C-alpha cells in the first residue's frame, strides 16, 4: 500500500498545486486536448466508459475524488481522443463496426494508464531525483510523444508528457525542461493533427492508408523503446543509488511495467505490434486481467504465445484477433504491414535483437528481452527522429544514447529485481503476478548479467549461428506475407466496388470482377455513344426520311444508333425490348467500337433500328418497299412506344416497375412479330446479303430478349445475367443496369 499512500500524497500535492496545474494547462501543450475534445464527443461512449472504469479501477481516486476526477478526466479524454482517432481510422477502414468494442477496452486501458502514469510520475518525482534524471526522463516522454505523431497513439503519450509537465511544475524540479517538453508537445500536436488528417483519406486511398499504417508501426517500436528507455533510466538511477531507494526502482520498474503493459494492451487494441513487452508484461497482464478487458488481456497473452513460436508480426496479427475479430481482415493486413515495417526500420541493430528474441527461451529472459530490444530500438529510433524532427531530435539522440548505454548494463538486472520488488511492494496484486515475476526475474537475472555486459556485441555473435537461416526465412515470410496482405487488401477493395459480390474465394471474386469490368466497359461505350450521338440523329431526322437505299443509310447509321439509344433512354427499356430490331443497332457499337459499322450491314441495321425504335416511319420511309411487311407488324409494338413514353415520361426513376409490365406485354407481341418481319424482309429484300446478318441478329436478340425482363425484375442481378450470351443481350443488361442505377 505504500504506493497508494504515495499516490495519495502526490494527489494532495496536486490538489494544493492545482493552480499550478491549471497554468500549464493553458500552455500550448494542453491545447491539443481542446482540439480533440470534439473527437471525444464523437465517441461519447468512450468517455463515459473511461470515467466509469476509472472510478471502479482506482480506489485511491475515490479517496480524493475532487482531484482525481479532473485530472483523470482530462487524461482519459486525451486517451479517448487518441482512441477515437484510432477508431475513426478503423471505422473508415472497417466501416465503423468496431467503434464500441474498440473504444471500451481502450478507455479502460487509458484509465489504468493514467493511474499508473500518475503513480509513476509521482513516485519518481517524489523520490526527488536529480534534475538530470528528470531531464533524462522527461525528454524520453516528450520523445515518445513526438515520435508518436505519425501514429494515433500520440495523444496518450502526449497526455503523459503533459501530465509529466504538470508534475514537474508541481515539484518545481525541472522548469526548464518543462518548456522543452511543452514545445515538443506543440510539435506533437501539430504533427498529430497532420496524422489525424492523414488517416481520414485512408479509406478512399488505400495506399495512403498503408503508408500511414507503416508510420504507425514505425512509431510504435520507437514509442516502446522510449518508454522502456525511460524505465531503464529509472532503473539505472535506482541502481546507481545502490538500490538504496528500494521503493524507487520498485516503483520505476513495476509501474513502468504496468504502464508498458497498458501500452501493450492499448497497442494491441490499436493493432500495433507489441510483442516486445509481451513477456515482460505477462505477469502484469495477469494481474490486470480481472480488472481490464479480457480482449486486450488475451491479446497480450496471445501475442506472447505467438511470439514464442514465431515473431513480432505474427504476434501482432494474433494480438489483434482477440481485440476485435471483425477488423482483422482489413486491419490485419495493416498490422502485418506495420510489423513488417517495424523490422526494417530499426535496421541492423534490431535485426540482431530479433534473433535474440527468437532464440531465447520463453521462460527465460522474460524481462530482459524487452529491455534489450528496446534499447536497441531506442538507439535506432533516435536516429530516425533526428531526421524527422531536426533540432530537438539531436537532443533526444543524445539523451537516448546516454541512457541507452548505461542502461544496457544495469537495466536488465534492475528490471528483474525491480519487478520482483514490485511484486513484493504490491500486495494488492494477486499472487499470480508475484509468481510470474519471481519466475521471470529470477531465471533471467543470471543470463541478463552476462548478456547485459555487451548486448549489442554479444547478441549478433551468439545469434548469428542459429538465426541466419531463420532470419532469411523470416524475411521471406515477411515479404510474402506483405504481398499477400496487399493482394487481399486490394481484393477487398475490389469486392466493395463490385455490387452484390458475395463471393468469398478469390477465384470467383476475380471472375466477377472481370465480368463486371466487361459489363462496365460496354455500358460506358454504349452510353458514350448514346450521349455523343443523340443529338445528331435528332438534327438529321428530317433528312433521313428521304434516304432510300441502304447504302446511303450507312453514313447515318450512327444516327439510327443514336436514335435507338436515345429512344431507348428516353422511352426506357420497353422500347428496346419491345422492338427487338433495335438490338442490331445497339449491337453495332460494341462490335465496331467507336467507329461506325460497314455500310452493307449498317444500313439495314440502322433502318431496322429506326424501325424498331419509336420512329417506325423513318424506318419505313427509308427502307420503303421491302420493309412494308414489317411495317405493319412492327407498328403494333412501336405504336405502343409513344404511349408508354407518355405514360412513363422521361423520368428515369421508377421506370423499372412499369417496365416490367410493359416488357411482358411487348415481349409477347413483339417476339413473334419481329421475327416474322425479319424473315419477310429477308425474302422480300433484294439486299438479302446485307439483311441476313441483321435478321440473324434480330433473332438472336429475340432469344436473349427474354432475359432483360427478368433482369429488370431483379435489377440487382442485372449485371450478372446474360453477359456473354450475346452482345445484344449484354447490351440489354447494360441498359437495365443503367435503369437500375437510376433507381
Amino acid at each position, binding site marked *: 500500500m505504500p504506493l497508494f499512500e504515495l499516490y495519495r500524497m502526490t494527489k494532495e500535492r496536486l490538489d494544493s498545486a492545482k493552480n499550478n496545474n491549471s497554468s500549464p494547462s493553458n500552455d500550448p501543450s494542453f491545447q491539443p486536448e481542446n482540439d480533440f475534445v470534439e473527437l471525444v464527443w464523437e465517441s461519447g461512449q468512450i468517455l463515459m466508459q473511461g470515467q466509469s472504469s476509472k472510478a471502479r479501477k482506482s480506489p485511491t481516486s475515490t479517496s480524493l475524488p475532487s482531484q482525481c476526477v479532473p485530472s483523470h478526466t482530462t487524461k482519459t479524454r486525451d486517451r479517448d481522443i487518441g482512441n477515437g482517432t484510432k477508431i475513426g481510422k478503423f471505422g473508415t477502414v472497417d466501416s465503423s463496426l468496431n467503434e464500441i468494442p474498440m473504444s471500451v477496452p481502450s478507455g479502460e486501458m487509458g484509465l489504468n494508464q493514467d493511474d499508473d502514469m500518475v503513480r509513476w510520475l509521482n513516485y519518481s518525482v517524489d523520490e526527488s531525483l536529480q534534475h538530470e534524471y528528470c531531464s533524462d526522463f522527461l525528454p524520453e516522454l516528450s520523445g515518445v510523444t513526438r515520435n508518436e505523431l505519425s501514429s494515433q497513439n500520440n495523444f496518450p503519450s502526449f497526455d503523459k508528457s503533459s501530465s509529466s509537465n504538470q508534475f514537474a511544475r508541481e515539484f518545481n524540479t525541472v522548469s526548464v525542461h518543462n518548456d522543452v517538453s511543452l514545445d515538443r508537445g506543440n510539435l506533437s500536436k501539430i504533427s498529430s493533427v497532420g496524422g489525424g488528417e492523414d488517416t481520414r483519406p485512408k479509406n478512399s486511398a488505400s495506399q495512403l492508408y498503408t503508408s500511414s499504417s507503416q508510420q504507425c508501426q514505425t512509431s510504435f517500436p520507437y514509442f516502446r523503446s522510449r518508454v522502456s528507455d525511460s524505465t531503464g533510466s529509472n532503473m539505472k538511477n535506482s541502481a546507481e543509488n545502490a538500490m538504496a531507494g528500494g521503493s524507487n526502482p520498485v516503483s520505476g520498474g513495476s509501474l513502468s511495467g504496468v504502464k508498458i503493459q497498458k501500452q501493450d494492451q492499448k497497442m494491441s487494441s490499436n493493432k500495433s505490434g507489441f510483442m516486445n513487452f509481451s513477456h515482460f508484461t505477462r505477469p502484469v497482464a495477469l494481474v490486470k486481467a480481472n480488472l481490464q478487458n479480457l480482449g486486450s488481456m488475451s491479446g497480450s497473452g496471445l501475442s506472447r504465445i505467438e511470439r514464442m513460436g514465431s515473431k513480432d508480426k505474427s504476434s501482432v496479427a494474433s494480438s489483434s484477433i482477440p481485440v476485435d475479430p471483425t477488423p482483422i481482415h482489413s486491419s490485419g493486413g495493416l498490422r502485418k504491414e506495420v510489423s513488417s515495417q517495424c523490422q526494417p526500420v530499426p535496421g541492423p541493430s534490431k535485426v540482431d535483437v530479433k534473433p535474440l528474441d527468437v532464440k531465447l527461451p520463453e521462460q527465460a529472459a522474460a524481462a530482459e528481452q524487452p529491455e534489450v530490444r528496446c534499447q536497441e530500438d531506442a538507439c535506432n529510433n533516435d536516429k530516425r527522429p533526428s531526421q524527422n524532427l531536426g533540432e530537438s531530435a539531436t537532443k533526444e539522440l543524445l539523451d537516448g544514447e546516454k541512457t541507452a548505454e548505461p542502461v544496457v548494463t544495469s537495466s536488465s538486472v534492475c528490471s528483474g529485481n525491480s519487478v520482483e520488488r514490485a511484486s513484493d511492494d504490491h500486495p494488492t496484486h494477486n499472487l499470480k503476478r508475484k509468481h510470474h515475476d519471481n519466475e521471470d526475474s529470477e531465471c533471467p537475472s543470471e543470463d541478463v548479467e552476462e548478456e547485459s555486459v555487451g548486448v549489442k556485441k554479444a547478441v549478433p555473435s551468439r545469434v548469428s549461428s542459429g538465426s541466419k537461416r531463420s532470419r532469411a526465412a523470416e524475411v521471406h515470410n515477411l515479404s510474402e506475407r506483405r504481398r499477400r496482405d496487399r493482394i487481399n487488401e486490394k481484393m477487398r477493395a475490389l469486392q466493395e466496388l463490385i455490387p452484390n459480390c458475395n463471393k468469398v474465394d*478469390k*477465384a470467383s471474386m476475380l471472375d466477377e470482377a472481370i465480368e463486371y469490368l466487361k459489363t462496365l466497359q460496354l455500358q*460506358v461505350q454504349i*452510353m458514350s455513344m448514346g450521349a455523343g450521338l443523340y443529338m445528331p440523329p435528332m438534327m438529321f431526322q428530317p433528312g433521313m426520311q428521304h434516304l432510300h437505299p441502304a447504302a446511303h443509310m450507312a453514313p447515318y447509321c450512327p444516327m439510327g444508333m443514336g436514335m435507338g439509344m436515345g429512344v431507348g433512354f428516353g422511352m426506357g427499356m420497353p422500347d428496346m425490348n419491345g422492338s427487338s430490331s433495335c438490338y442490331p443497332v445497339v449491337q453495332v457499337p460494341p462490335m465496331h467500337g467507336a467507329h461506325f459499322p460497314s455500310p452493307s450491314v449498317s444500313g439495314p441495321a440502322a433502318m431496322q433500328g429506326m424501325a424498331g425504335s419509336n420512329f417506325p416511319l423513318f424506318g419505313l420511309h427509308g427502307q420503303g418497299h421491302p420493309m412494308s411487311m414489317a411495317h405493319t407488324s412492327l407498328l403494333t409494338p412501336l405504336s405502343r412506344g409513344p404511349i408508354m413514353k407518355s405514360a412513363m415520361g422521361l423520368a428515369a426513376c421508377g421506370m423499372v416497375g412499369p417496365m416490367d409490365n410493359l416488357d411482358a406485354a411487348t415481349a409477347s407481341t413483339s417476339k413473334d412479330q419481329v421475327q416474322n418481319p425479319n424473315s419477310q424482309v429477308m425474302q422480300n429484300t433484294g439486299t438479302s446479303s446485307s439483311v441476313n446478318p441483321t435478321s440473324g441478329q434480330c433473332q438472336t436478340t429475340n432469344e436473349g430478349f427474354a432475359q432483360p425482363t427478368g433482369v429488370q425484375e431483379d435489377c440487382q442481378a442485372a449485371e450478372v445475367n446474360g453477359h456473354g450470351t450475346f452482345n445484344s443481350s449484354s447490351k440489354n443488361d447494360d441498359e437495365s443496369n443503367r435503369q437500375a442505377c437510376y433507381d
Partner: protein
Amino acid sequence: MSSRRSRSRQSGSSRITDDQINDLVSKLQQLLPELRNSLSDKVSAAKVLQETCNYIRSLHREVDDLSERLSELLETTDSAQAAIIRSLLMQ
C-alpha cells in the same frame, strides 16, 4: 519454424487456386487499358487489382457522367422529339 508453418499453411490453402488466380489476374490485366499494353507479365497481382479498382471507379464515374448527360439530352430534346413524332404520325 514459423516460416515453415506459415508456408505449409499457405500452400495448403492457396495452391489449389494459385494457377487459377494467376489466370484470372492476367485476364483482368487484359481488360485494363493501363496495363493492357504492358506486355510483360511481371505486373504484380496487387498492382493489377489496384488498377482494376481504379479503373472500375473511373468507369463508375464515367457512367454517372454519361447517364447525367443522357438524361439532360433527353430532357432538352424531348419536346422536339415529341413534335417530330407527332408530325410524322400525322402524315
